[in-house]
């Protein structure tokens, strides 16, 4: 029995059948990027916004020629922004270059070593962007109070980190993630720190609506295979969540009947 398609992920009024969102960074080349994304089944793909290489080789295709905005929902991020102004500017430029497409991933970093978000600045940037009619998917710490704040000011999705970006440590605090999910009326997606398939499955078992990852796939030994694993992990975790897991018990509960022994 497969999940009925009434279990689509809905973000800002658009439905997606895949709950796996992927980044496009750290791949060997654009061909590998394309194959990994296809293998993952992802429909939402993040990109970064950077200066064009003026006068550089024109035979190098642009990312958006390989990953077309016609086929995918492109999610520009504000990676590398450490202040409100640069994050807001980045989103505005992204909206212009994507012809008015206004779904963005907001991250305002606070520290180069951990890449943890600066929460006060993230909140300020989120408010400015929401006021400017952006649909903001916000990268945040796993603080349940902050997660709810972002929802209250109008973010369309809240994305708590599992662990630092690129660390591959998996979900550090499942209890916080669960609390965030329980309190939320907008989609909650784990973003950052996922390392392998079981991490993604756990996120979904906690009730998350989706998972965003980049390094976990791009830095696997075999990225295209890992992308496939992640696709299955997200589906498995989601089915397990919808199926309602058995309770944990302190002691054993036999699975076979206790009478009718022949000995």
């Amino acid at each position, binding site marked *: 029995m497969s999940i009925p398609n009434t279990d689509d992920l809905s973000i800002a009024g658009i439905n997606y059948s895949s709950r796996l969102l992927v980044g496009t960074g750290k791949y060997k080349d654009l061909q590998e990027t394309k194959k990994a994304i296809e293998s993952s089944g992802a429909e939402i793909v993040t990109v970064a916004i950077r*200066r064009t290489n003026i006068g550089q080789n024109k035979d190098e295709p642009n990312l*958006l020629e390989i990953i077309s905005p016609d086929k995918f929902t492109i999610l520009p991020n504000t990676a590398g922004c450490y202040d409100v102004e640069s994050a807001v500017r980045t989103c505005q430029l992204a909206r212009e*270059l994507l012809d008015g497409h206004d779904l963005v991933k907001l991250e305002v970093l606070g520290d180069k070593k951990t890449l943890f978000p600066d929460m006060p600045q993230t909140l300020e940037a989120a408010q400015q962007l929401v006021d400017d009619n952006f649909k903001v998917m916000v990268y945040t710490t796993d603080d349940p109070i902050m997660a709810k704040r972002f929802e209250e000011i109008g973010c369309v999705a809240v994305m708590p980190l599992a662990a630092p970006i690129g660390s591959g440590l998996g979900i550090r605090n499942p209890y916080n993630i669960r609390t965030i999910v329980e309190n939320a009326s907008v989609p909650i997606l784990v973003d950052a720190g996922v390392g392998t398939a079981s991490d993604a499955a756990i996120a979904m078992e906690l009730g998350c609506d989706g998972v965003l990852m980049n390094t976990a796939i791009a830095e696997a030994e075999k990225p295209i295979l890992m992308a496939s694993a992640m696709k299955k992990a997200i589906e498995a975790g989601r089915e397990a969540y919808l199926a309602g897991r058995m309770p944990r018990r302190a002691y054993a509960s036999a699975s076979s009947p206790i009478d009718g022994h022949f000995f």
Partner: protein
Amino acid sequence: MEVLLNGDPHSIDQSCTIQNLIRDLNLDGKFAIEINQNIIPRSKYLDIKLHAGDKIEIVQAIGGG
């Protein structure tokens, strides 16, 4: 005259419009342009002339997480 293009000095003609610059640089694909921290909508590319000392940023989408 001199402008700053993506952080580097760049020489352009006196009456250079943004459209002229785009053509001279052979830009294609999807990009966005900012002049002195103001985003220029595509519809204005033919109208807006560049001035000496303008700080121009041209950005595009690249791989990222």
